[in-house]
């Protein structure tokens, strides 16, 4: 009887209703957001994130940085904290910030990040930063900036003539842009590296979702990019570096608990599997 009871318990465990797993994930994600002050530090800051931070930190005031917002709402949890942290860092250093996108949903999300940072540091649209919006054509648009940015973005997102904006003074090609960070949940950074960096020598960093990060490690090892912000952890690391804990760190807490839950379920699943196999072989 006891054996049958144990066996049925193992079988029940192997055929566990997936709604229990869903419930565990839901609690793991939601609870850290509901508990006040539950913001985990990012852990050890990766040298790749540190490198982007150091590059921006080392630029003199009024240098020009370009952020490519090539992601959509699906990747907001990972990408938006990254974009906000970068914008805040650049504006805190009095850099001029140019936002562009070759992803159609990027400009509105990029605009939100730019405005959030600008409000905090009292920066003015058109003077200290600009959102040039979306341009179709992908690699052609990126290459076009190398010859004349105003041919690719004759107006900004609000329809103003981009050449007349104070923030754009002295900016014509990649030669006048001190640092570019391609933020993306798509393969767009490959085009940025191939054309902006390789063809025109632009200095570049990349920020991508965690699932894509390993695709860009080879470019780090060959110094084609100076740094890499890797998913939500990278965003939390950047928030840690600029001492602005926000959604990156909050998300990191939720992700920590969710990862622990998945690890726990995998271990339970394996224990049940080995018990079942030992019994069926026996």
């Amino acid at each position: 009887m006891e054996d049958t009871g144990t066996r049925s318990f193992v079988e029940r465990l192997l055929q566990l209703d997936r709604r229990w797993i869903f419930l565990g994930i839901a609690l793991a994600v939601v609870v850290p957001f509901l508990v006040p002050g539950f913001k985990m530090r990012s852990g050890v800051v990766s040298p790749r994130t540190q490198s982007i931070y150091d590059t921006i930190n080392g630029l003199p005031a009024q240098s020009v940085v370009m952020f490519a917002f090539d992601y959509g709402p699906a990747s907001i949890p990972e990408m938006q904290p990254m974009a906000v942290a970068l914008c805040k860092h650049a504006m805190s250093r009095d850099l001029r910030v140019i936002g562009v996108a070759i992803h159609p949903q990027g400009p509105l999300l990029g605009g939100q990040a730019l405005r959030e940072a600008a409000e905090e540091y009292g920066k003015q649209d058109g003077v200290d930063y600009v959102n040039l919006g979306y341009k179709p054509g992908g690699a052609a648009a990126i290459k076009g900036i190398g010859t004349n940015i105003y041919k690719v973005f004759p107006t900004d997102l609000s329809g103003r003539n981009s050449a007349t904006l104070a923030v754009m003074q002295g900016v014509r090609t990649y030669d006048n842009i001190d640092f570019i960070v391609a933020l993306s949940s798509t393969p767009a950074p490959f085009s940025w590296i191939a054309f902006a960096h390789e063809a025109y020598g632009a200095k570049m960093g990349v920020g991508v979702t965690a699932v894509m990060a390993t695709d860009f490690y080879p470019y780090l090892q060959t110094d084609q990019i100076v740094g890499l912000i890797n998913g939500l952890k990278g965003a939390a690391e950047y928030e840690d570096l600029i001492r602005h804990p926000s959604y990156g760190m909050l998300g990191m807490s939720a992700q920590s608990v969710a990862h622990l839950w998945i690890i726990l379920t995998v271990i339970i699943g394996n224990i049940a599997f080995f018990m079942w196999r030992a019994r069926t072989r026996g």
Partner: protein
Amino acid sequence: MKVQVPIAICFIAGMIMLVKFFIPHYWSDRLEEELLNWARIVGAFALVLGISSLLRTHVEKIRRRRRDYGYSFVTLLAFIIACVLGIGWGLDPPSPFDWIFTYVFAPLDATMFSLLAFFVASAAYRTFRARTPEATIMLLTALFVMLGRVPVGDMLAPHGLFVAWAAALGFCIVWAVYPWLRHHTGQAAPYVGLLIIVAPVMVAFSLYLAQSASETTEWLMSVPTIAGKRGIILGVALGSIATSLRIILGIERAHLGGGGGS
């Protein structure tokens, strides 16, 4: 003519861009700039084609009253509303389009993507089993990367996690290598001897990496993973060069429509 003219255009444009790369001159830059303008205009027309295809598909679905045709109504209605609001009031906040994007589209899109976490957790529970030595190595590595990607990993790492992980990994390597050795040498390899060699290596390896879980994860991602990745990248690059040359030289004609390559 229908085939020759597009092939000729493709050949000329391809060769110009190829040769231009090696001639950094004012006129070659101007020529490239002009061609890139054309490329962007052609790219914009692709958007028009995409929209017309979307509309045709859904109108047809409604007309024929196909299954779930109600969703097509929603698609068309959303398309019309987004177009009217975007063209009529612009994109800048506080425009109605920005409101819809921020409070309707963005949460819906993020929600759809977030469902992935639930399915991944369920799939991991059901399929991530240590059935073979190779599967066990993958399982241990995956679990470790999961720990290394969150701060909790760094908190747990100093408490013997590395040694336990390395010992388990070492055991799996012996488990995987032993039958292979026995098969290829034709004699029973000294199992204990192998274990004696692997175990100290794994302990030394764990001590070397025992700074933090995130450092180990970085090592896993930047050394063994990249070793495989580089091979894939080189293969893809060579394939891209071959395909580009086939298109420029008119050997590959699938992009012209109506069939595959020659």
